[in-house]
């Protein structure tokens, strides 16, 4: 029984953090905070960070980091807009967007494994490269594109109405379920953990560390690409300056969700909850009408508090 509880606790951790944030803002009591309309709004607002956090979970479990996701999101949103604008259909545009992210991730992975440079530096470089490319392709402006169903992916009034959430939110949930399953129950998932726990051991055990790493960064890039498509759907324009600094939010979501930057630890569900926590935080601050600086301070404090809560729990057992 106690044993059971102990196993459940780390999974509950991020939920506790989320509950804490929800309770806090409910206590302060802005109107509509717990309303279903607001839930829908927050869910839509979470899609981009959430998608980014899915891929980032793999990267962080493998002991890496990807600072380029924000820029890749912008690049993918620009590419999607450009492809649409060139007269191609929406599906092609989506594939192009996701493909762009995948390509960026592949380059990250190859540079990291082939040149042996630390992920922090490679992806810091890619942060600049992808952002610059996005601006170049977009001619330093936002890119307008004809309307398509991509925009409907992020609407808060989805058709048919029984969907409740925007289709993008369902996509996030579905992808999270798939990636959680892959992480828990496949050889690839096991190898991801192995690489992050002890790379030398993984190598010794015949895990193709290079391939696994490249695949992980490609996956993370593809997730960022999809997030970029969603960002395009939300903005209805391709924006080369969007999602600046988003990488830090995404990493924070993963860490709040139980990921360890030292590698070997992380949970998809946790990261998802972490992403919701980040969104509810910003949302709550907006709703109570806190000035921006209060919001910044509050978010800073709560990120620390949420992770501290988790650590105290760890220490207590």
């Amino acid at each position: 029984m106690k044993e059971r509880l102990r196993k459940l606790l780390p999974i509950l951790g991020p939920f506790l953090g989320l509950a804490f944030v929800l309770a806090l803002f409910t206590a302060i009591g802005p109107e509509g905070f717990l309303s279903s309309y607001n839930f829908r709004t927050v869910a839509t607002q979470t899609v981009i960070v959430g998608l980014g956090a899915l891929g980032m979970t793999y990267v962080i479990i493998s002991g890496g980091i990807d600072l380029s996701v924000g820029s890749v999101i912008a690049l993918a949103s620009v590419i999607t807009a450009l492809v649409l604008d060139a007269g191609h259909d929406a599906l092609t545009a989506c594939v192009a967007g996701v493909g762009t992210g995948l390509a960026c991730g592949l380059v990250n992975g190859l540079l990291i494994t082939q040149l042996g440079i630390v992920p922090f530096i490679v992806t810091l470089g890619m942060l600049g490269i992808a952002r610059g490319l996005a601006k170049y392709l977009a001619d330093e402006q936002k890119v307008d594109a004809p309307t398509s169903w991509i925009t409907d992916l992020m609407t808060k009034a989805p058709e048919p109405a029984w969907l409740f959430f925007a289709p993008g939110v369902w996509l996030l949930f579905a992808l999270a379920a798939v990636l959680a399953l892959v992480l828990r129950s496949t050889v690839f998932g096991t190898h991801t953990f192995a690489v992050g726990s002890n790379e030398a051991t993984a190598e010794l055990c015949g895990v193709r560390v290079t391939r696994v790493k490249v695949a992980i960064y490609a996956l993370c890039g593809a997730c960022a690409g999809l997030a970029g498509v969603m960002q395009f759907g939300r903005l209805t324009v391709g924006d080369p300056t969007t999602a600046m600094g988003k990488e830090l939010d995404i990493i924070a979501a993963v860490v709040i969700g139980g990921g360890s930057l030292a590698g070997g630890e992380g949970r998809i569900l946790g990261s998802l909850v972490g992403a919701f926590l980040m969104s509810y935080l910003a949302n709550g601050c907006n709703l109570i009408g806190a000035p921006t600086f209060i919001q910044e301070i509050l978010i800073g404090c709560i990120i620390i508090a949420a992770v501290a809560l988790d650590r105290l729990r760890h220490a207590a057992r």
Partner: protein
Amino acid sequence: REGKAQDGRRRIAVIPKGTTHEFWKSIHAGAESAGRQLDVEVLWKGPLREDDRDEQIKVVEDFITRRVDGIVLAPLDDAALIPCVRDAVREGIPVVIVDSDLSWDGRVSFVATDNFVGGALAARKLGELLEGAGRVLVMRYLEGSASTMKREEGFLTTLTDEFGQIEVVSSNQYSGATTEGAYRTAENLLIQFADVDGIFCSNESATFGMLRALQDAGLAGQPRFIGFDPSQKLVEALRAGELDALVIQDPVAMGDLGIRAMVDHLEGRPVEARIDTGVVVITKDDMDEPRQRALLDPDLSILER
């Protein structure tokens, strides 16, 4: 519906592009004073990350959740903000646009400076100061910022159209959003173009960065220099002759007229679709006249907590 605050006053949300420029403070002051006069509550909230469209969309969405009576918005983008503004209107919340336009006609009104004219005024002033000949440097502000791009466009077209003798030596360098970035870019530009005759910058941070670079290089006062928007340091520079002219908008009026337009609309009175708040060029000579004074150093005392 729960639209009214406890005391029954109307609540109008005012959403700037950011919160850390004096320009937005002035809009806030204008909105606040109109709010007091008309007895409405003004809710002031900017996006957390400035210049990020998505963040501004979130602020709009969250105000929809709060069911305010109206939204006065300075959109970061003329298209990206459309879906959420449309959501607001669908939920019965009217929207007035200020400062930069939104390409959607569902808004109540558009209250703003004519930025192209602002740029053109600067070009004419510079042309006049240079007596129609010389080399001119333009340090742009930020990629994709509609209002400043309009100013730069107004400046450049007017300059080429009306002053054929003036050569623009550089106009592809962006200062970036921060003062420090502007300073750095300006420093590096001045290494190459130390001998230019005229300089134009299209917003406050770019102007200030350029001013610092000029001061530091010992060049201040040498090239004719026209900036855009005021701040205390820029006004000092104007007085000291380091800056020849400033193009000034009237953000206080923008905030004030934005709220008034919204209240008129809510009370069923007709509202003009386009309200121009005016733009002027101020030089050392006329800077102490009362009207110019008010524009250069707007009264923000209403915001004091």
